[in-house]
């Protein structure tokens, strides 16, 4: 029951918002709903170890409507519900354009994301998976930056292409299930698919997630979309939606096509590492801050993807920890970038400089977020990436070495960007710029607090991840044994 509440609370609130007129009330209601959802989630995490909610409601699009969660979903849900209050809060600005609709769409996105993470049934999963695209499509289309119509359509088609292959894969698995067919994950995980089938089925399933994450070379939609997207749009995209790809991969690939995973493991890891280097190197010379951070995010995500395919306890633990860490960090970063844009009116690094003189608070917060993203010890980023690199080293020292270069390259471009924006002699153009306001504190302080608290005391989240990794290994079947072989 509690799950259905978590799932539906946002969307229902969103629907109630639509007829309202006054932006202020709309925002307040939306925010309260999101916060309430977060509290429920926390309560859930504390109280119930693992619940599964299943309405035997076969009339729902002809399948079993089954919600439930294990550790992996729990982490994703936690991330989603943790970030959305801030995403909504970040809309508390002066602009009054279609506030009800915007908040409705945001809450709609939240619900569908939660659906993705809660679904215990591939068909349901797919429904929500597609559903997330719809509100995001409109958020991008209606609130995006210049050239949004073309970019949005490209993003939409690109991601949908992957999704449809996923649909094909799901149906194919469905037809493989014995007797009266079903799309429950539990049934899929019991399938023993011949290796040669797994080898092609792997890509059918993986392509969707690879595009979503994105993994090199399926990333080309990402930089332009991020750069174009509105503040809340990019927060949703970078903060949560990229994690959908990771979640999906964990849900589908390892339990269902383990041999396929092992068969392609090295190639995929190679792709991911290419992505790491490629994105980091590109980020170094970007003049547009948003695109720079988009590429840095891609680098981190690629590292996480590599960790996923390293298939051992450390990398998976690190991955799941990093899911939260990266989500929080990237959202803080993008919020700051938009703050800078709103205050200074530009995103171009060459026009920046000396902002620290007029906005010291902004400078310090940005520096902290940057530290989180370059994985300085005592920030959550370090714990995640340390575990990830450990896992990669388990795979091979070279892999770890290449993956570890993010430590160096990240430091290079992030610190460069920071210095370019904030430091240097005071800039006459920015003399009027105000430092951050109360609202910004409300958003940034908690996010950055999370970064550092998790860096100093990561254990709670790690325990969550621990449980999920074990549960995953349990449900992994053959690959689970593989993992245990690799780790012990």
């Amino acid at each position, binding site marked *: 029951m509690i799950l259905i509440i978590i799932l539906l609370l946002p969307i229902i609130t969103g629907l109630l918002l639509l007829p309202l007129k006054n932006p202020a009330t709309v925002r307040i209601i939306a925010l309260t709903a999101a916060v309430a959802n977060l509290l429920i989630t926390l309560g859930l995490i504390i109280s119930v170890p693992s619940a599964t909610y299943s309405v035997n409601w076969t*009339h729902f*699009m*002809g399948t079993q409507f089954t919600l439930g969660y294990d550790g992996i979903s729990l982490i994703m849900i936690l991330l989603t519900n943790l970030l959305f209050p801030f995403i909504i809060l970040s809309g508390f600005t002066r602009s009054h354009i279609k506030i009800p*609709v915007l908040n409705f769409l945001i809450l709609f996105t939240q619900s569908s994301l939660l659906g993705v993470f809660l679904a215990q049934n591939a068909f349901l999963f797919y429904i929500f998976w*597609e559903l997330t695209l719809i509100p995001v499509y409109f958020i991008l289309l209606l609130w995006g930056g210049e050239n949004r119509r073309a970019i949005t359509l490209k993003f*939409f088609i690109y991601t*949908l*292409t992957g999704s*449809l292959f996923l649909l094909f894969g799901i149906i194919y698995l*469905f037809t493989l299930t014995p007797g009266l067919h079903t799309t429950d994950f539990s049934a899929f995980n019991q399938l023993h698919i011949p290796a040669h089938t797994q080898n092609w089925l792997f890509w059918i399933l993986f392509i969707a997630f690879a595009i979503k994450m994105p993994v090199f070379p399926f990333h080309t939609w990402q930089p332009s979309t991020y750069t174009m997207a509105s503040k809340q749009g990019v927060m949703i995209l970078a903060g949560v939606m990229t994690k959908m790809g990771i979640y999906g991969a964990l849900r589908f690939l390892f339990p269902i096509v383990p041999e396929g995973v092992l068969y392609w493991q090295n190639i995929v890891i190679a792709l991911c590492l290419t992505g790491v280097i490629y994105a980091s190197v590109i980020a170094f010379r970007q003049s547009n801050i948003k695109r720079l951070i988009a590429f840095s995010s891609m680098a981190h995500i690629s590292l996480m993807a590599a960790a996923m395919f390293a298939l051992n306890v450390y990398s998976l633990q690190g991955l799941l920890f990093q899911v939260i860490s990266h989500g929080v960090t990237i959202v803080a970063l993008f919020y700051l970038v938009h703050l800078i844009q709103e205050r200074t009116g530009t995103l171009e690094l060459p026009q920046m400089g000396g902002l620290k003189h007029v906005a010291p608070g902004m400078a310090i917060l940005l520096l902290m977020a940057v530290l989180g993203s370059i994985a300085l010890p005592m920030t959550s980023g370090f714990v995640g990436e340390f575990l990830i690199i450990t896992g990669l080293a388990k795979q091979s020292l070279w892999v770890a070495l290449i993956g570890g270069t993010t430590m160096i390259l990240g430091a290079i471009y992030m610190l460069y960007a920071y210095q370019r924006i904030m430091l240097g002699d005071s800039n006459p153009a920015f003399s009027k710029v105000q430092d951050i306001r109360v609202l910004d504190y409300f958003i940034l302080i908690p996010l950055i607090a999370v970064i550092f608290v998790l860096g100093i005391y990561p254990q709670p989240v790690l325990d969550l991840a621990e449980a999920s990794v074990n549960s995953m290994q349990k449900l992994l079947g053959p690959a689970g044994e593989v993992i245990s072989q690799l780790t012990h």
Partner: protein
Amino acid sequence: MSALILLTVFGIIILYLGFVNNKTILAPVAITGLVATLILSVKDWNLGSKYFHDMMIIDNFSISFNVSMLIITILIFLFGINYYDRMEHHVAEQYALMIFALTGAFLMTSFSNLIMLFLGIEILSIPLYILAGGKKSSFRSNEASFKYFLLGSFATTFFLFGIALVYGASATFYLPEIKNYIAQFHGHLPPMLMVGLLFILIGVAFKVAVAPFHFWSPDVYEGAPTLVTAFMATVVKTAGFAAFYRLLGMGLLPLPGPLEKTLWVMTGLSLLVGNLAALRQTNFKRLLAYSAIVHTGFMMLAMLSQHDSSAAVLLYYTFVYSLATVPLFIIFIHMKRASLGLEELSIFRGLYRQKPWMAVFMTILLMSLAGLPPTAGFLAKYRVFILSISQGYLAISIFAVIMAVIGIYYYFYVLREAFSESNSPTPLVINKLNAALIIVCGTAVLLLGIFVWSVPI
């Protein structure tokens, strides 16, 4: 049977009502007639009654298809109330002809004899030739009817020739007997029979506008009056597929290898040609025409992956497709009026700004056509894919998946227009009834997507 008679009677009544030129009573009468027919046909459920020496068998299959067509026709008539109120003369004929066409459609769903099939097709087609030319003064309408007529009768001749050849070989018009006759060859048919069957299939394929026999449809759809187009795109296609399925199911299954291959080729071609041609289409009616061809391809997919549930899936698909298409045409009519007769996609600009709710429902409808969850269109496609994949047609399914992506592209292109600002916004007026109907259809599409009263296969 009684339903059929009642329908015909009502058609004639309306024809006579044309003399008292009072348009307001036409639609109500027609709709009551349709509703009455609906009730009567439902009463025949599970009776499986046979007529005319079993030339016509009204079983659940035909009833369900009839009902779906009746519902769609009722919808169209309801929309017609507003559509025809600026037309002074010959409104009665419009309704009457549609009803007559519907009777033909009824025959097509319930035939068990090639003669009946032929009659059904013709009774369906001839009124459409006239309806397509409904706007007598308009060149386009004129051209539409002209092309439809010539190509249609040309196709009919082939169809007849095919029937003749089959008759020559099998000495019967009854599908079951033909089936038995074919069965004795174990797939290696004599050329004459083979060609005959091919011609019959082509005749039907032409009616449902399967590539490469689709050339008439974009032109006719564009030229014909929009409401007629809606009728053709939905009811006629449904009827055509009912006939097609019945033909295959009663007569020809299991299809001889070559014929089956032919049909697969047609399927693939329809998916490809329809999508590619729709990709850069700027005229909305043509766009829907081409997308209709694509949907034909999907319906073929459902029909050809021979499974017990094919009929159910086919019914579901056609109905959902019609339910989404008709209101889109209606929205289009309003936009066209607002933009003083233009038919480009750009006329949808500013819809969101002026009538956000309309835009939302248009989104739902287009999503359904594009096959995105949680709409019924998605479920329809999903079930089609389940059929084809479970029958092991993997290659064509993958192909269809890719084609679905292309489809999404142009549907969302339209949507993008609807949600972008218009440079010259003209006041858009949508009358209450139509708005209500559009909303009903949109909701229905959603609900059919979510609450479907059977498992997907």
